[in-house]
């Protein structure tokens, strides 16, 4: 492997410390860093805040982390696919912060691009805007939403070049590119690492400046 960013899955996941805020790219089971999550589950690292759209299904993918009691709190949009989340929340075992999906994506991007907060019409007047500043713009009520940042982002990309430039595959792209900008340490699980210059400079989605560690999927 000619990339200085390449690490084994185990070395990479060792960067996740107990109590960290971890972003994980995914929408359902599309575009999630499967081997990194398996390794995180195997590590037993706990007290985590997981920032992700959903939490897979019970015992599968990100769902394993909840089944394993590694999660203290969740920040995300949709846990209907994993009823263990509502259960753990109702029992007070975890805290859950629900955010509208578009606001969630935009707030993560905002952290990546240095925007601390923005106004959005989404959610105005609903329970999810409770306690948030609301202000009218052009006659429309808008909610002030703050950016969402993480200690570590675990993302899934299709190909990396040796520098760490990334491209994605179909709807597995989802939250991965915005999360790649919004964490102190960004670890990307990829299917292939290609020589520098193999990716079209016009089509690179995540520039290498954002990527700290590359791991490669074994299967």
């Amino acid at each position, binding site marked *: 492997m000619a990339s200085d960013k390449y690490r084994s899955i185990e070395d990479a996941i060792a960067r996740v410390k107990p109590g960290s805020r971890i972003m994980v790219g995914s*929408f*359902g*089971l*599309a*575009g999630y860093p499967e081997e990194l999550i398996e390794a995180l589950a195997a590590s037993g690292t706990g007290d985590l805040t997981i920032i992700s*759209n*959903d939490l897979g299904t019970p015992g599968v993918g990100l769902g394993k982390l909840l089944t394993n009691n590694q999660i203290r709190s969740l920040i995300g*949009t*949709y*846990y*209907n*696919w994993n*009823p263990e*989340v*509502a*259960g753990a*929340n*109702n029992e007070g075992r975890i805290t*859950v912060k*629900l*955010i*509208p*999906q*578009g*606001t*969630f*994506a*935009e707030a*993560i*991007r905002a952290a990546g691009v240095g925007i601390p907060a923005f106004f*959005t*019409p*989404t*959610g*105005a*007047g*609903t*329970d*999810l805007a409770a306690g948030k500043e609301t202000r009218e713009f052009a006659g429309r*009520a808008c909610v002030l939403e703050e950016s969402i940042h993480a200690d570590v982002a675990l993302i899934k990309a299709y190909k990396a070049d040796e520098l760490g430039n990334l491209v*994605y*595959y*179909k*709807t*597995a*792209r*989802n*939250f*991965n*590119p*915005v999360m790649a900008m919004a964490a102190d340490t960004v670890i990307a699980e990829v299917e292939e690492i290609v020589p520098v210059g193999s990716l079209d400079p016009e089509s690179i*989605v995540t520039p290498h400046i954002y990527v700290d560690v590359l791991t490669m999927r074994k299967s």
Partner: protein
Amino acid sequence: MQAILEQQAKERIASVIARHFDSEAQNGRLFINLGVGIPTMVANYVTSPNIYVQAENGMLGVGCAAPEGQMDHDLINAGRTCVTETPGCVYMDSAASFGMIRGGHVDATVIGAFEVDQKANIANWIIPNGKQLGVGGAMDLVTGAREVVIAMQHTSKNGKPKLVKGCTLPITGIGEADMIVTEYAVFVFESGRLILKEIAPEITLDELRAITDADFDLSPDLHLMPL
């Protein structure tokens, strides 16, 4: 009032909405986003080549469901169904996709609802203290899409009206509903009033009022739902 079986009700709702979109698409391209359930079925009924489906998980130009044996689990819609590509389709990240929605570029969204009230408020995201905890893109879609079409059966499984005077469940958006299509009727909101536009042949106006809690007016061109 003649009962309509659930499957028939769903197909009817989807086909009525599809007819509405086919008509709108005569004026140019129409970009629509379809929620899970009945809304997704709308795609099976539209006939205009001018209609493009957007999926909020990051795709414009979503094709039909992938046939058995040709499923790619990294090519899904927001309901996690494996789908197909259409020529000229585009992939994008979630921020870009919701930007497209919030920015008002998507012409219409079709969603289900637990309740809709006569002030066009929609409740479709949560039943408090239940087994489900999620909002997904519901709030973004009702706020961002230019036209919000509610696709729902007229009453709940235990026969209670879903079209109510005031929502009792947590709302998804204030005054965002534009059109409501059930198996028995088509309503639109015009100047803040709920207006009955179409009524199904199986039901009388009095019977419709009996299963509708919300107050509504009759459209000057109220007519039978074409089936």
